[in-house]
């Protein structure tokens, strides 16, 4: 990856953010019309941080993640905005240049390890392939040895034997560990994990989350965690982005989002969660309606049709702004006043969205 004087990072070393995404917009031309999958996402990520991007289907969280490493580039897609790694712009790089970034600077792991690993090659071979694609001078034997070490580092027992096994010979949790091992092979600075535990059992999920957390704390590996599960977010994240219909609707620290949420969608998500450590509510607070189709977005605030607190101002698209004077880093898109928000979000003693009965 060449670094010309113009694109050299202004601050070398521990200066600017490790990863900076600015006004990222991704549109797709589909048979049924144009779809704006991502509509203005901004965030920064430092080494050692875990940023969680939370959302449901159509929120744009996966597209955001994939666009960071250029996986969404295609004749049908239109990408605007900036993604800078250590100050260097990625969106304008050629496919060949990006290929050297993928895997080695920014690694990405996906949701279903069963389908995310090629079934016809051994796990070891797939790891070796990753290593040698970026470091062609490394011999096959040496890469194989590195693969064994990596499998051991992620907690796979008997790695020297398992390195020659095929993906289907691993259990679900072990497969995901192998994927993480493959992601770490080149010691990237950023790990993007797209729903890494959704397809796994809850006990395995806990193990994988702990592994990701250890890597994050131990190696200072900056992590972007894509998920729909707020429980997972609460366990590992430092900061949170809540996305809805392609836009970020709330953005802040972990405590901000869980204890002082400002946007009704966030209230709805928090409210509809079951809590094992609290008594059961009579009815699970729910969000009525369904996430909108990106082809037919409501005018004004996209959440309006489902929001019991909507009022006249909601006809205009609200900006993502810091609305709490004491907390400039906590942004949201709801135009209710902070006092109204504090009042309306309490439903039967917990945060929720329904009209109080």
């Amino acid at each position, binding site marked *: 990856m060449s670094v010309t004087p113009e694109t050299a990072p202004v601050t070398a070393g521990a200066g600017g953010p490790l990863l900076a995404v600015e006004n990222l917009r991704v549109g797709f031309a589909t048979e049924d019309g144009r779809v704006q999958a991502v509509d203005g996402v901004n965030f920064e990520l430092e080494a050692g941080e875990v940023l969680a991007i939370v959302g*449901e*289907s159509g929120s744009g969280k996966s597209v955001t993640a994939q666009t960071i490493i250029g996986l969404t580039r295609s004749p049908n897609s239109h990408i605007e905005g900036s993604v800078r790694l250590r100050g260097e712009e990625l969106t304008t790089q050629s496919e060949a240049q990006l290929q050297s970034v993928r895997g080695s600077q920014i690694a990405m792991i996906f949701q279903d390890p069963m389908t995310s690993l090629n079934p016809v090659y051994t796990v070891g071979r797939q790891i070796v392939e990753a290593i040698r694609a970026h470091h062609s001078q490394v011999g096959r034997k040496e890469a194989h040895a590195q693969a064994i070490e990596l499998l051991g580092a992620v907690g796979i027992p008997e790695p020297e034997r398992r390195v020659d096994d095929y993906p289907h010979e691993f259990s*679900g949790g072990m497969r995901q560990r192998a994927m993480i091992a493959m992601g770490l092979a080149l010691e990237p600075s950023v790990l993007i994990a797209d729903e890494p535990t959704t397809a796994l*059992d*809850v*006990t395995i*999920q*806990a193990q994988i*989350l702990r592994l990701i957390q250890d890597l994050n704390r131990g190696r200072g590996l900056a992590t972007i965690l894509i998920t*729909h*599960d*707020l*429980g*997972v*977010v*609460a*366990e590992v994240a430092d900061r949170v982005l809540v996305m809805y219909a392609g836009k970020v609707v709330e953005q802040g620290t*972990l*405590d901000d989002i*869980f*204890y002082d949420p400002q946007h009704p969608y966030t209230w*709805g*998500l*928090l*409210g*509809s*969660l*079951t*809590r*094992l*450590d609290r*008594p*059961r*509510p009579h*009815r*699970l*607070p*729910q*969000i*009525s309606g*369904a*996430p909108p189709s990106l082809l037919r977005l409501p005018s004004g605030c996209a959440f309006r049709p489902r929001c019991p607190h909507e009022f006249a101002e909601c006809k205009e698209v609200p900006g993502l702004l810091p609305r709490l004077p004491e907390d400039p880093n906590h942004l949201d898109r709801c135009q209710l006043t902070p006092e109204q928000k504090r009042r309306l979000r309490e439903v039967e003693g917990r945060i929720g969205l329904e009209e109080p009965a």
Partner: protein
Amino acid sequence: MTDAGAISASGGPLLEVTDLVKHFPIKSGLLVDREVDQVRAVDGISFIVNKGETLGLVGESGSGKSTACRAVLQLLKPTSGSVRFEGQEIAGMGRRELRPLRREMQMIFQDPYASLNPRKRVGQIVGDQLKVQKVASGKELRARVEGLLDRVGLSPEHYNRFPHEFSGGQRQRIGIARALALEPKLVFCDEPVSALDVSIQAQIVNLLDDLQDELGLTYVFVAHDIGVVRHISDRIAVMNQGKIIEAGDADQVCEHPRDDYTKKLLAAVPIPDPRESRARRDRTASAG
């Protein structure tokens, strides 16, 4: 381990399962297949479900909970054991004898995308059983189906649409309407919300709750999400490797688990509350 739950006041339990076993043979051999071992998917479970109650069945993948449902409903032939529905023994019953009983026991499936025939219209999907079981036809059939659609939160005009025109949550509602068409007494819900968006899950859970109150349904609710199971269930049975290792009142099992596996399962569920989550981690760190 049977739950010593009380038999309801209105007579015997609706469903009584005793020592249910379902083994799948593992075959090997050079030329001819010989059974060398078995997969003990369900390895002797017993439980009772009373009328109007919800029994939650919790377990991880491979625990046998889905196989158990199918074995109870006789969609799979049990290897051994007894299944009594309203006092009548149905384990190993033939297809013909089972047919009238199928009206009483129904199932809602996990995947709203795979469980609806994409070539059939919604009205057909929901109403076909009424035709097959000769319960209604023609105008009356249509009226009943539209009534069902309305009850599950869809509108009558959806009668002629195809499944692919609906979202996941709506398809699951169609699946529920289908299950309720014959006015069953017992409904098995096999992971009915796992494949849905979080904000829709609560809707479907609430719908199932409401329908239970309205229609006096009895549920066996199977899921791996303990939080959801606890919310909707009166009693919970925890399955592991084909056996029920703990059972009891839902709140009791979740707040005061007795078995180590149950404890491990509950401890692994992430707490959507950062302070509590940190506190729990500190507790286990200092204890460990």
